[in-house]
């Protein structure tokens, strides 16, 4: 089987872009990836576009703006996992021999589409009685507090860590360090969460170009190519009995698919970008991925083990809490960060000696399902 490599990355500034469109942001990210790869765009054979709240065929609008026409493109919607699912499309095309170079991007003009607290779909019976996304995660946090003695301050530290990392990332939405007190004193959203426990509503886009191992040998720059060793995707199971809300079986199962494909285990992972849509979410993801034992991650954050320079840095880019969360762009931006770190191009947030990175997204909620779509990607240098 062929190996798959990331040969180019592109990303816009994440933040509020009132005068831009999803297509314009997407085109900027795609042009960035093409320039980064230093390839003739006509080498691109297939494309996948992730977006959630954007007009239909936003992907084709992006291709139009960059002058690419004719190639197959599919628009992909998998809630917050849309961008990562687009990458999987490109990954599979290369494995199947359908393309030797494939483009995947995610773009979202969220401030134009959306305001206020996220709710599940309109016909959702839980939304009908007052569920919001922050409330659902807040309930998981409350249960975790009860089971494992998690404190409010420990939760706040996750936001402090990720915003500190974001302050080192020029493309991040948040640019300022914050204190634990800032998190505790922020406007209440759903207890125990305040505003700074929640990822912001952001606009932005990110793009990656993938190529086969053969293509990299013939045309590429092997010193800059980073191997995409696994791109796993799972759909959440409908629960047949009430399950734990403090451990993510879906994350564990998706990670196991990825570990098996990549031939690595959690002990081999040097750093992680995970879907920290809320502070508690980082805990649930990390423990689901098997990187820390259940119930132990909050104390590890307190000891600095997840800091840049710690034992296993988590969300060096700033994560969703710090870098921002333009839904479909998020999964692609995680892979952009993994590539920067593995190339040694991450500047002041560089993790020394990083060889294996993992990226995790999960998104969407349907009744009886702990999460709709989950992706795990492993990159190795």
């Amino acid at each position, binding site marked *: 089987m062929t190996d798959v490599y990331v040969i180019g990355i592109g990303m816009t500034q994440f933040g509020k872009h009132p005068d831009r469109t999803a297509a314009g942001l997407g085109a900027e990210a795609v042009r960035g990836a093409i320039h980064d790869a230093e390839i003739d765009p006509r080498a691109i054979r297939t494309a996948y576009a992730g977006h959630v709240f954007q007009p239909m065929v936003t992907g084709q609008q992006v291709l139009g703006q960059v002058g690419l026409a004719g190639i197959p493109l599919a628009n992909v919607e998998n809630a917050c996992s849309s961008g990562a699912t687009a990458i999987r499309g490109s990954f599979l095309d290369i494995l199947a021999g359908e393309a030797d170079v494939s483009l995947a991007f995610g773009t979202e003009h969220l401030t134009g589409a959306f305001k*206020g*607290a996220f*709710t599940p779909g309109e016909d959702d*019976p*839980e*939304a*009908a*009685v*007052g*569920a*919001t996304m*922050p*409330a659902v995660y*807040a*309930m*998981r946090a*409350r*249960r975790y507090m*009860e089971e494992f003695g998690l404190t409010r301050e420990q939760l706040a530290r996750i936001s402090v860590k990720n915003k500190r990392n974001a302050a080192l990332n020029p493309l991040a939405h948040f640019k300022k360090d914050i204190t634990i007190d800032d998190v505790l004193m922020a*406007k*209440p*959203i*759903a*207890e*125990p969460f305040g505003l700074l426990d929640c990822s912001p509503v952001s606009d932005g886009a990110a793009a990656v170009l993938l190529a086969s191992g053969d293509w990299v040998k013939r045309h590429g720059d092997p010193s800059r190519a980073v191997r995409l060793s696994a791109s796993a995707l799972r759909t959440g*199971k*409908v*629960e*047949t*009995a*009430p399950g734990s*809300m403090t451990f993510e079986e879906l994350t564990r199962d998706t990670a196991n698919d990825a570990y098996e494909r990549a031939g690595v285990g959690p002990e081999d992972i040097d750093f992680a970008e995970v879907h920290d849509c809320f502070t508690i979410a980082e805990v649930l993801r990390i423990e689901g991925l098997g990187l820390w034992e259940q119930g132990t991650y909050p104390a590890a954050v307190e000891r600095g083990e997840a800091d840049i320079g710690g034992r296993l840095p988590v969300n060096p880019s700033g994560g969703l809490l710090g870098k921002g969360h333009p839904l479909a762009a998020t999964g692609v931006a995680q892979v952009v960060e993994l590539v920067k770190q593995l190339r040694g191009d991450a500047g002041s947030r560089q993790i020394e000696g990083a060889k294996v990175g993992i990226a995790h997204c999960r998104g969407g909620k349907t*009744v*009886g399902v702990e999460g709709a779509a989950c992706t795990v990607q492993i990159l190795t240098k």
Partner: protein
Amino acid sequence: MTTRTPVSFRPHDLVVDDDGTGFLRGSRCPSCGAHYFPTREVCAGCLTEDLETIPLPTDGTLYTYTVVHRSTPAFEVPYVLGYVDLPGPVRVLGQIDADPEEVAIGMDVHLEIVPWGTNDEGTPLLGYRFAPGGDA
């Protein structure tokens, strides 16, 4: 002046009797015993297709909760929201009719039928919440 009879806010999920009592409607799988709310066509455990529609028990325990301070315009904040485990077992989300200080994980709660605004035609609606304590 006519008074209109209140109706369930989601007639399929919440059945309300004339005397103002009511119950949530769920599904039970006759093959594997799994329970679901809301009702489903196919058992997610064993893929059996002839699920029974049943009234769910009205007493349960609180699995977890939050106090919501920001919501959609349809809801007045703050309100307590929680997941309740009912015998089956099956987990149901609902608002908790209690002061935040009285709410604790593991507490007994029971279903109550409460006014739930009006629909577009002005007909009063009935919804559900869970209140502290067992039913009787």
